[in-house]
């Protein structure tokens, strides 16, 4: 939960995320060049994500890969779980990763808050676990199509490790897949992936430009976790009764939707009632019964003859 308390530090980020910042919608990919050696020697790869829990900002998936023969070198770099490192330590390690570009490659996938909200709120729900799994699978595919001789994959789990592992094994039978909890502290290659992901997510938050207009909102939104009062207060400040939050916020988070319910305006959809009937597949009774003649033999009182109306003659019950 120590994530990104320091993200507000104003300084230029170590990683260039301007491509994402300019259009912070959908999915954005970043990557290093593919080291030549990784296409020749058998490689291992680590996968981790950053920013899964927070209500603000993108979720970033990171992967890193290197030849198995370089495992010793990798250990020497002293990677650790990105969460236990300070911002500057992480950035230093990120530099180390980029310096090792001869044999260490990485990729990252930035999933914008808008993309996450859209997936999770669309008619056929696409939950966060499935999004995570699919993103990881996609990244593995990309690495394979780059020609990297991948043989081993280490993954920090999302959901149950067993089912995730069997899912990955069935898709990539040629790979030795290891899915565990806390993989980022167990395997240096996963730590490297987690550092990439985390540094990129931090950069996205620091560099974030509000597409709604940069002057509309303050950038002191805290770490993005709902346990952070700065984040909650920032959300309360920027809520618009009609439009809700800026796109930095994941609308699909219950914190966001609850806040909208209590602070936003209620929208009444006149079709909702009808939808319910349609769902029940109940046709209207008027499809079967035609309209009655308005002044026919029905129970409706017949119109009086023009003679009486023109002369303003009315029936009375009592005579004065």
């Amino acid at each position, binding site marked *: 939960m120590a994530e990104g308390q320091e993200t507000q530090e104003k300084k230029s980020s170590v990683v260039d995320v301007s491509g994402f910042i300019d259009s912070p919608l959908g999915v954005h990919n970043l990557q290093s060049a593919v080291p030549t050696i990784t296409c020749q020697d058998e490689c291992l790869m680590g996968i981790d994500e950053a920013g899964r829990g927070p209500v603000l900002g993108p979720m970033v998936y990171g992967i890193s890969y290197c030849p198995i023969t370089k495992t010793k070198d990798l250990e020497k770099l002293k990677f650790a779980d990105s969460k236990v490192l300070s911002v500057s330590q992480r950035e230093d390690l990120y530099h180390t990763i980029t310096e090792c570009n001869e044999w260490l490659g990485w990729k990252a996938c930035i999933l914008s808050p808008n993309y996450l909200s859209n997936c999770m709120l669309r008619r056929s729900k696409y939950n966060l676990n499935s999004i995570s799994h699919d993103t990881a699978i996609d990244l593995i595919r990309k690495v394979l199509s780059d020609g990297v001789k991948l043989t081993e994959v280490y993954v920090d789990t999302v959901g149950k490790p067993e089912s995730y592992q069997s899912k990955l094994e069935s898709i990539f039978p040629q790979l030795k897949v290891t899915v565990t909890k806390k993989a980022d502290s167990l395997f240096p290659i996963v730590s490297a992936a987690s550092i990439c992901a985390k540094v990129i997510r931090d950069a996205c938050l620091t560099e974030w430009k509000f597409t709604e207009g940069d002057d509309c909102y303050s950038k002191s939104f805290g770490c993005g976790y709902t346990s952070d009062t700065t984040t909650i207060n920032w959300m309360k400040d920027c809520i618009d009764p009609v439009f809700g939050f800026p796109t930095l916020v994941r609308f699909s988070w219950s914190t966001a939707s609850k806040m909208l319910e209590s602070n936003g305006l209620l929208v009444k959809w006149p079709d909702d009632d009808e939808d319910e009937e349609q769902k029940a597949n109940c*046709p209207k009774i008027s499809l079967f019964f035609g309209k009655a003649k308005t002044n026919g033999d029905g129970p409706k009182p017949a119109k009086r003859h023009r003679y009486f109306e023109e002369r303003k003659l009315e029936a009375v019950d009592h005579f004065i």
Partner: protein
Amino acid sequence: MFEARLIQGSVLKKMIDAIKDIVTDINLDCSSTGISVQAMDSGHVCLVLIELGSDGFEPYRCDRNITLGLGLKALSVVVRCANNDDSITIKAQEGTDNINFVFESPNGEKTSQFEIKLMDIDSEHLGIPDTEYDSVVKMPSHEFQRICRDMSQLGDSIVVACTKDGIQFSASGDMGSGKINLRQSSLVDKEEDQINIELNDPVHLTFALRYLNYFTKATPLSPTVTLSLKAESPLCVTYPIGDFGSMKFFLAPKIDDEDTAAATQE
């Protein structure tokens, strides 16, 4: 001048209880032959038709056809003030915006008077055609109520199938499924406990239980209920009211595929 006195005021109470969950406002269409009410639920999925002949009232006077629009909420509040054995007199003067209710205890010692403001209710009247039904089933009303209640535990809709062997109600859902078969019975002593099936053609129709459960709120009105069924046509559930009237509920069958949906459009 309109005036109608119902000796058994409890009948009016039961009628209002039966429809107050379906409709919010009703028009009492009063003519010299009696009172009729036609109303639909907000989604226009079902239709209620109440017909009360003038011979059920003593006295009954209706000089001119008159339509009295009433909010059911107010009506229900007022009618609840009547004792079950009270007689209820409904009075409305020509040209006023009020309707009067007078409750009299059987021994004449207590009378209560209530006045409700009339409403202008815009309602479209549907012409209900005289239908030759394929199957007409008369059964104890509490039995029908029980079936609908039990089946609604299983699913949202009920399949009603009438054959020469009897009538079958079935429902299914995530939990499981259930079937209830009723055979024609003539050996029962009491006529109201009999199940009587008039069959011209076998029918097989599906209905939304939600509405049937509304309809069975009319069970206290009558010991028997009649289900009139015809393929691709609305079901008619009839609760007779004494020998002078009836409360009818119409509900369109559920449509499974689009072909039948198109076929039922006029």
